[in-house]
């Protein structure tokens, strides 16, 4: 069956290229004939190629349209599909063929096709967002039919152990998202606590103090951190940082499990450093030089200029950078899955193991392909919460950052 589909697609491709070539040659020949027949100053509106392109596009459009329709509506009518595709595309080709004439604005039609295609492609962006929103909301609504939204958002207990069979006396399950959200928040706070000051100071150091050479070397090195897959950071947290923190705290007499909010948070912070440093760098560089000059001319030192003049004017942009970083930290998955543990402790203690929204989504959805237990749906509800939070953060941040980016471009 799949082979046949492939052949059909190939057929459509061949037909559209054939149509292109044929009609283009027809148009070419007519142009030539016209030119030889006399000095008539009639120009062809469109280059012969465009008559060809138009044919190719129409044939492909009709072909793929029929292909999609058949696959959706009459999935198994292979013969009918082939016949109608052959008929439909020939018709499209013929239609264009009939139109070939000096005055026919084939280029304009072709360009309209191109623009429409491009429009459709950018429409996919919206479609993706809609897809996300609808799939999250749809499944979440089913979840909220079981667990009231209010309980979900304010419940203090997270223990998603519902029965999978009717005769299983499992537990009623507790779907209070507070411990999960709290855990997410703790890890995010630790991560920002690391990445915020470090990233900001890096941006300041590189833009104010470092020599051009140092900047050229250091910047790409720090950017490497941004390119490392999160699963690698997770492994690092699990294998190296967690035990290191544990050894360190053992020496201090505190028992810290290797999977703790602290190790996940710290490693996540390291991962986010480049995000904050490069965004802050943009923002700091966007502060007009005249302000810097003004402060220097008054005898301010670099740090005074930075702290008292540049930083305050860059503050909104820096806040935006932080918001983006927060959004990133909240949505980060692999590090916490591997290094934060799964216990939904209602705690503010960074030394304990906590769980996050993303960890719970993974825990609830890996494995079980079944699709209507409250448990599975709970993952979508958590996903919705995650999406809503990050959406708000992103939009606020992106608006602000965009302003700075434009300033720095101007």
């Amino acid at each position, binding site marked *: 069956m799949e*082979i046949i589909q492939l052949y059909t697609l190939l057929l459509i491709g061949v037909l559209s290229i054939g149509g292109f070539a044929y009609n283009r040659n027809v148009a070419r020949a007519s142009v030539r004939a016209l030119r030889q027949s006399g000095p008539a100053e009639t120009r062809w509106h469109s280059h012969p190629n465009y008559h060809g392109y138009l044919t190719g596009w129409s044939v492909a459009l009709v072909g793929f349209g029929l292909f999609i329709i058949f696959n959706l509506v009459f999935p198994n009518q292979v013969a009918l599909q082939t016949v109608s595709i052959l008929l439909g595309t020939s018709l499209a080709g013929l239609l264009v063929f009939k139109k070939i004439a000096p005055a026919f604005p084939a280029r304009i039609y072709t360009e309209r096709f191109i623009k429409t295609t491009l429009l459709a492609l950018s429409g996919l962006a919206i479609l993706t967002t809609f897809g996300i929103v609808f799939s999250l909301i749809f499944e979440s609504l089913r979840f909220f039919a079981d667990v009231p939204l209010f309980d979900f958002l304010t419940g203090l207990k997270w223990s998603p152990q*519902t029965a999978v069979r009717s005769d299983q006396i499992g*537990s009623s399950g507790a779907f209070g998202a507070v411990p999960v959200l709290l855990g997410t928040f703790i890890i995010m706070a630790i991560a920002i606590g690391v990445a915020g000051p470090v990233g900001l100071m890096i941006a300041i150091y590189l833009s104010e103090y470092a020599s051009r050479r140092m900047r050229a070397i250091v910047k790409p090195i720090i950017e490497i951190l941004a390119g490392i897959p999160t699963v690698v950071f997770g492994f690092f947290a699990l294998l190296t940082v967690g035990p290191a923190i544990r050894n360190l705290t053992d020496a201090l007499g505190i028992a810290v499990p290797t*999977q703790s909010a602290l190790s996940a948070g710290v490693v996540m912070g390291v991962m986010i450093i480049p995000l904050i440093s490069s965004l802050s760098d943009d923002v700091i560089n966007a502060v007009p030089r005249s302000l810097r000059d003004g402060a220097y001319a008054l005898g301010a030192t670099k740090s005074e200029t930075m702290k008292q003049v540049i930083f305050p004017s860059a503050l909104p942009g820096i806040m935006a950078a932080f918001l983006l970083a927060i959004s990133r930290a909240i949505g980060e998955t692999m590090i916490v899955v591997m290094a934060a543990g*799964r216990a*939904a402790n209602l705690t503010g203690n960074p030394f304990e193991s906590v769980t996050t929204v993303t960890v719970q989504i993974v825990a609830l959805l890996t*494995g079980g392909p079944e699709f209507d237990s409250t448990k599975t749906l709970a993952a979508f509800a958590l996903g919705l919460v995650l999406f809503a939070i990050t959406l708000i953060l992103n939009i606020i941040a992106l608006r602000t950052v965009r302003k700075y980016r434009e300033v720095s471009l101007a």
Partner: protein
Amino acid sequence: ADGGPESVETENSIRVVGSSTVYPFSTKVAQEFRNKTGWNVVVESTGSGGGHRAFCEGIGPNTPDVTSSSRPQKPSESKLCQSNGIENVVEIKIGYDGIVVANAIDSPSMDMNLSTLYLGLAKLVPNANCEMVENPYETWNEIDPSLPDTKIEVYGPSPTSGTRDAFVEISMEGGAKTLDCLANLGSDDFRVAAHTLREDGHWIDSGENDNALVQTLINTPTAIGVFGYSFLDQNTDKVKGARINGAEPTFENIATGHYPVARSLYVYVKGDKMGSVPGLHDFAMEFVSDEASAPGGYLEKIGLVPLMPSERLDMREAVAHLSASNL
């Protein structure tokens, strides 16, 4: 485009889902089977419950061909299978497994009774007046002074897992039965009392990945984990099992039944798909082959307690017979 050969509805791989306890055994069998025959096998760990659910969803090409389970299929599950047109399900018992209550090797050893487990983990427990109340115990030594003064923090399998069912049925219910107060309850109330685990954070669903659980135990010295014996067997350098009712979880104790928390492991094969999934029958045979499940077979080496020889021969007979009737 009439050149395309009319392709038959065959699948190019065998899909296995099911118990995380059986996962190491099914992957091992899958690997050996592939080496011997070249058939591709895909194994996903979903938990016994999740496995049965997916397995019984239908007989289409996207449904699993095999599910493994650390408990027998429940009537409700076989009903689901039937209602979805799955007539021919072969049950293969592949061996035994104990359920161990383990902690990190450096942590203090635990010596428990079934009742300790019940009192530590049930949602409702009797108080001094034999009234059922929300579980008040915070640390182990509140239940049994000989146990350490550590927080009750048990990482155990989630409801999709057969280990969970078995654990609840054998140790929780077993523990509940030893308590006089519960004897007075009606049978339904008793079931609820014995089968409901705490939801106040002392019992933590650890997901389907027993490997991660072992990791957690090493990392969290106070934590206790509930998982299959085979995992303990593979990780004796990292974790150790608690004695239960005086018995260590060992190979011998499980095989002989001295260790109280033990159950059988199963593999369920869709007989209906044996025609359309080439290799499926041979794959089922591999589970009961000498090389795999006889004493000294590769499954025993990774911790499966083998069946009695006669039992195994019966199993093999059943699978072999199926081929004759079906193909």
